[in-house]
């Protein structure tokens, strides 16, 4: 791949615009444009495996991610840790091709989702972002939309029926652990929810289109401790249905939620391993120094 400024997905931009009325066909989690045999929507957790192979990412001349090869396994939560500017968010944004939306940004190498190269020229970028959802640092509900409309915004782009919208909207809210808190005010503005609820609303919005992978870029950094713990509990439940990749500066959060932890430094992958090993006996001295907070 070597993509620059491809078509932008309206549902996944940050800050988010309102979804557009001219919706594409509701279809599979991911498909190759023009293919008559799209892949079916994921029904079990035998899908959602992401593999990076020699991934490089640039901002103009700045080489932000340097030849990273890494697997994200289904049914697991993987945390990416590292100091500011180490390339962790950039790497994650390459997975759903958000990186290339930035002027002057480009990427090379391969990002495979269940063996399918997401940077293949024949791949529909919108479908990529449907299969690989993303939750950002600050909750970003559509400000003029109700709670339920926020959740089903992406679904409406797929042409889902009213009944289907209601059913899947409710399922997504249940999946995001928000249903009991909002079931009596589904028509109220989403922006009226608390910060933690808004973030779970955004998670519900991402879940509604049944992604295979959920990318979370510092999802709790704007939340209070209680809201943070709710999101962390939710992450533990979400991994049963989506592959979760979380970028965090909070190492205790990584230790609490992740099965696998990845440490990056200066755009390079330094160490990847089971979270308990990374936080008790890392192999690399640089990892040791970082997780113990001796150097920053």
């Amino acid at each position: 791949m070597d993509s620059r400024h491809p078509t932008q997905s309206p549902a996944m931009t940050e800050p988010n615009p309102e979804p557009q009325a001219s919706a594409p066909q509701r279809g599979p989690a991911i498909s190759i444009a023009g293919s008559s045999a799209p892949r079916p929507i994921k029904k079990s957790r035998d899908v959602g495996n992401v593999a990076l192979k020699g991934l490089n990412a640039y901002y103009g001349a700045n080489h932000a991610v340097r030849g990273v090869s890494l697997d994200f396994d289904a049914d697991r939560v993987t945390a990416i840790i590292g100091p500011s500017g180490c390339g962790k968010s950039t790497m994650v944004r390459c997975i759903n091709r958000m990186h290339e939306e930035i002027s002057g940004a480009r990427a090379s190498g391969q990002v495979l989702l269940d063996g399918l190269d997401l940077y293949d020229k024949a791949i529909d970028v919108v479908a990529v972002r449907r299969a690989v959802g993303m939750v950002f640092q600050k909750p970003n509900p559509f400000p003029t939309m109700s709670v339920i409309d926020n959740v089903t915004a992406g679904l409406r782009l797929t042409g889902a029926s009213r009944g289907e919208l209601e059913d899947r909207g409710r399922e997504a809210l249940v999946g995001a652990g928000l249903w009991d808190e909002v079931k009596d005010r589904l028509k109220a503005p989403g922006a009226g929810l608390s910060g933690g609820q808004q973030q779970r609303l955004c998670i519900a919005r991402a879940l509604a289109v049944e992604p295979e992978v959920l990318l979370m870029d510092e999802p709790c950094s704007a939340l209070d401790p209680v809201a943070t713990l709710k999101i962390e509990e939710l992450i533990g439940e979400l991994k049963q249905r989506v592959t979760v990749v979380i970028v965090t500066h909070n190492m205790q959060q990584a230790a609490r939620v992740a099965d696998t932890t990845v440490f990056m430094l200066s755009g390079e992958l330094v160490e990847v391993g089971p979270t308990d090993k990374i936080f008790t006996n890392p192999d690399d001295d640089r990892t040791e120094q970082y997780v113990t907070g001796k150097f920053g």
Partner: protein
Amino acid sequence: MSPIETRSQYQEELDRLEASALDGLDMVSTALERTLEAVEQQDVELAQLVVADDDRIDGRYLEVHQSLITLLATQSPVATDLRLISALLHVLKSVERMGDQCVNICKMIPLSGNEPPSDREMVKLILSMGGQTRALISQAKRAFAGRDVELARDLVHQDDMVDELNRDCFRLALEIGDDADRREWAMTMLLAARAIERIADNAVDIGEQVAFVVTGLFREFEDASHPAG
């Protein structure tokens, strides 16, 4: 990563607590030295001093233990720091138990009477065990402070000598003769020998913690329930 050192106060506190915990081994060594003198001289007053002084060892245990728990709660230590704190908690427990063993020995001294029918050869064995055990305590401290796994492993061999002396004590007690007072005294000394042998085992336990801090893997140097060979 920038070479700017961070968390210096935390590191200083961790260093201070390690030094304080290891100093506990010096306190135990002193207690054992006095205990041996009390055994040799049948010095009841010195024995009572050791018993009273054990409060200092217990106080050290409580003080450092609480500070380590506070560090765990407030600083979220991980990796080597976490292993070190875990090991120091073990060291503290060993220190406290070693002190208690000295107390156990000293509490027996009045029971054996002011002028017991002692056996010079057996007392010599006990003193030899105690001296060897004090050397183990010192070696355990040096191994821990220097993160020296080889020195820590060598504690096993030194401990074997203590075990052999303990067996010699047992053999001597069997041969002590038919006099009831001498047999009672010998039984008391066997309990003292057993207590010293346990102190040496605690020193080996500390050596195992050295290996854990350095390698991240905890393995007993010797499995008492499945001895090699």
